[in-house]
């Protein structure tokens, strides 16, 4: 820390703090027209001039871009400082006599009228004062290059290319919000929202949070979702070797600091143009080592957390290049990296357990960690050849094929095959989070976490201890998340950046301020006022309708919400032993057994009975909370209260499936 004195008041600041920031922290005002914490300091307007004294000499500097590096005395209102400020402000006042910020700062130094007239005098109250904030924010913050200065000297002005709004301008309004004079206004929005300003204000608040806070929160702008690799590893949640374990000593080799240098930085988001969070990262110039494009340099969209873990740690692969290569070919072939990663993990475990061997895979070595083998299966899959033709059918069918053709044990395959409703699991270890087991198991389209992600709430924070608490969370969050889908919005801005005062909001996990922002957005777009509960109600109708649709398609009953035991607890002895202390503790404290007197097989069986039973109890609680029958079907009362009973054939379908009055 460095000790500095500002107007006689002593303070300590971290090296690199600007004089302006240090003064503001003390509540000492310094006018500053071209400064914003959202962009790099620029030093253009010079109204922030102050005098500094380092003990040897005194001089005038601009407070906004002067980083403190040694003890110093700062005088914000010395004669010299005010003199400089007066000269600067008089020029401005002469040119822009009616701009409020200028008038106020001028009055502060004793100026009300300039003593000369400026050839470019502009009487407007909202004249552009050329501070450059909009241009810089559009470049540095929004990562667009829409705005620029054009001309020199007195004819300098802010402009857009060819003087009109280009398609690259996403109308984010960041520029208008940062403008100190109100010089930027928006023309009519082609989407014709009921009230565009309300939408923009809600959006601008998110822009502000992302630009100011993301760097110290999730760093989505730098590394995207890849930061989760190290986090999940630290909390024993990173899938390793087909979800057997939650951490690996080599996970650091695929941590976000390994991806950051290969991700292109500071450019538009790869997923939604103009998104400030810009978490969709890309690797440019990856040199392919295998496959039909071998030897070419390519652009790869990703990898995200799910790809890094699913096609990395879950396969025992800890080489970033290999993950990038798998990512590329999955995209190229039109495969989902999550399904591919999870099914390969299943294949590898089968290989190591003897259900597969070299003969059955056509000579491909598929032990965990086999990069060549993984890529070979991927290429075969695309060509519809060899073992790839079997693997490409997904886990559900592979279980049957391995049992029928190779004589593998169906019960073992069922336990370790991480799929439900025919979809492969996404990449989190859920053994210690019952709520998330439900989140995966009950999800309408299979075990993906888009509906509910409750692992930390449940397992780490212990905020939802009872079945009823978990059921409530499995009501609220899936409904809330469904709402994003209904409106074509991304969820990440909801909770991957958090407002400064979220801790004090009373319900921080829901991020209430953001929920209100989405209400604003909805009202601004449609003209219909809504409260947070209304958003949940909107989703509930759709969600229940989808559940009934599942029923119609043969997937909407309790038995379809069953999950493999690998997601609930340790399947193998090795897995049990790897976290023996944890499992023994549960047997002792929750089951009431004495692990000291039990064999390993007995302990495994007892734990399994306990955990499977709890999962059934969870389903009961969730179905009840949702207004469903114990078979997981919406009741007639429920569909009536939601008004979806009017859908032709819906009530008949429920009746045909045993739902009575």
């Amino acid at each position, binding site marked *: 820390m460095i000790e500095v004195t500002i107007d006689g008041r002593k303070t300590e600041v971290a090296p690199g703090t600007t004089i302006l920031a240090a003064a503001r922290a003390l509540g000492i005002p310094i006018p500053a027209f071209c400064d914003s914490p959202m962009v790099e300091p620029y030093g253009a307007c010079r109204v922030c001039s102050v005098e500094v004294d380092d003990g040897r000499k005194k001089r005038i500097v601009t407070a906004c871009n002067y980083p403190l590096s040694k003890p110093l005395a700062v005088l914000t209102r010395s004669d010299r400082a005010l003199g400089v400020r007066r000269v600067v402000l008089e020029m401005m006042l002469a040119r822009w006599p009616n701009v409020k910020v200028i008038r106020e700062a001028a009055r502060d130094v004793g100026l009300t009228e300039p003593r000369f007239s400026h050839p470019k005098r502009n009487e407007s109250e909202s004249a552009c004062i050329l501070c450059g904030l909009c241009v810089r924010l559009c470049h540095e913050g929004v990562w667009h290059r829409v705005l620029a200065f054009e001309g020199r000297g007195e004819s300098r002005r802010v402009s857009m290319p060819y003087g009109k709004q280009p398609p690259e301008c996403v109308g984010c309004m960041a520029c208008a919000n940062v403008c100190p004079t109100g010089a930027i206004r928006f023309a009519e929005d082609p989407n014709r929202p009921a009230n565009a300003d309300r939408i923009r204000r809600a959006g601008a608040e998110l822009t502000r949070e992302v630009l100011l806070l993301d760097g110290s929160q999730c760093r989505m702008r730098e590394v995207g979702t890849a930061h989760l690799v190290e*986090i999940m590893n630290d909390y024993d949640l990173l899938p390793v070797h087909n979800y057997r374990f939650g951490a690996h000593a080599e996970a650091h080799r695929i941590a976000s600091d390994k991806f950051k240098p290969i991700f292109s930085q500071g450019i538009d988001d790869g997923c939604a143009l103009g998104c400030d969070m810009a978490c969709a990262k890309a690797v440019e110039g990856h040199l392919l080592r295998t496959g039909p494009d071998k030897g070419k340099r390519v652009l790869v969209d990703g990898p995200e957390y799910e790809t890094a873990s699913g096609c990395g740690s879950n396969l025992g692969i800890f080489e970033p290049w290999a993950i990038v290569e798998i990512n590329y070919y999955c995209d190229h072939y039109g495969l989902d990296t999550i399904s591919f990663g999870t099914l390969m993990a299943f294949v590898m475990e089968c290989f190591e357990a003897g259900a597969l061997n070299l003969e059955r895979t056509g000579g491909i070595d598929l032990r965990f960690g086999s990069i060549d083998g993984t890529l070979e299966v991927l290429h075969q899959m695309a060509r519809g050849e060899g073992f790839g033709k079997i693997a490409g059918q997904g886990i559900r069918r592979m279980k049957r094929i391995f049992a029928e053709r190779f004589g593998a044990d169906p019960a073992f395959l069922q336990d370790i095959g991480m799929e439900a409703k025919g979809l492969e699991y996404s990449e989190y270890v859920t053994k210690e989070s019952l709520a998330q087991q439900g989140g995966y198991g009950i999800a309408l389209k299979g075990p993906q976490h888009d509906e509910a992600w409750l692992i*930390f709430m449940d397992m780490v924070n*212990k905020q939802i201890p009872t079945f009823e608490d978990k059921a409530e969370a499995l009501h609220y969050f899936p409904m809330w998340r469904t709402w994003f889908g209904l409106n074509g919005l991304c969820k990440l801005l909801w909770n*991957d950046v958090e407002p400064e005062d979220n801790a004090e909001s009373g319900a921080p996990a829901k991020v209430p301020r953001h929920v209100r922002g989405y209400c604003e957005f909805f009202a601004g777009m449609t003209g219909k006022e809504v409260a947070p509960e209304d958003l949940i109600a909107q989703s509930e109708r759709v969600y229940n309708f989808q559940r009934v649709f599942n029923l119609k398609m043969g997937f909407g009953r309790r038995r379809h919400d069953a999950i493999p035991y690998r997601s609930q607890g340790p399947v193998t002895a090795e897995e049990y032993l790897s976290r023996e202390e944890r499992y023994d503790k549960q047997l002792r404290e929750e089951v009431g057994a004495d692990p000291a007197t039990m064999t390993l097989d007995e302990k495994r069986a007892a734990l399994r009975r306990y955990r499977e039973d709890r999962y059934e109890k969870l389903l009961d609680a969730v179905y009840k909370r949702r207004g469903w029958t114990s078979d997981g079907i919406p009741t007639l009362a429920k569909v009536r209260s939601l008004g979806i009973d009017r859908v032709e054939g819906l009530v008949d379908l429920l009746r045909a499936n045993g739902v009575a009055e």
Partner: protein
Amino acid sequence: MRLTVNGEPYACSEGLTVEGLIREKTFTFPLKVVFVNRQLVRKDRFASTVLRDGDVVEIVHLIGGG
């Protein structure tokens, strides 16, 4: 001394701060809200807040997943 951390007993040495506890538990995820005996502890006080025997600590991670 003994604390309760997120509902579970936790034994630790005297003089442990909130920051020290977070480190011991390898709670590396950045978005966290901490309450000690139901009082909010702001992030800039983690290092200076010393825990006492019997304190009930809640470390709420705000991670909602993609």
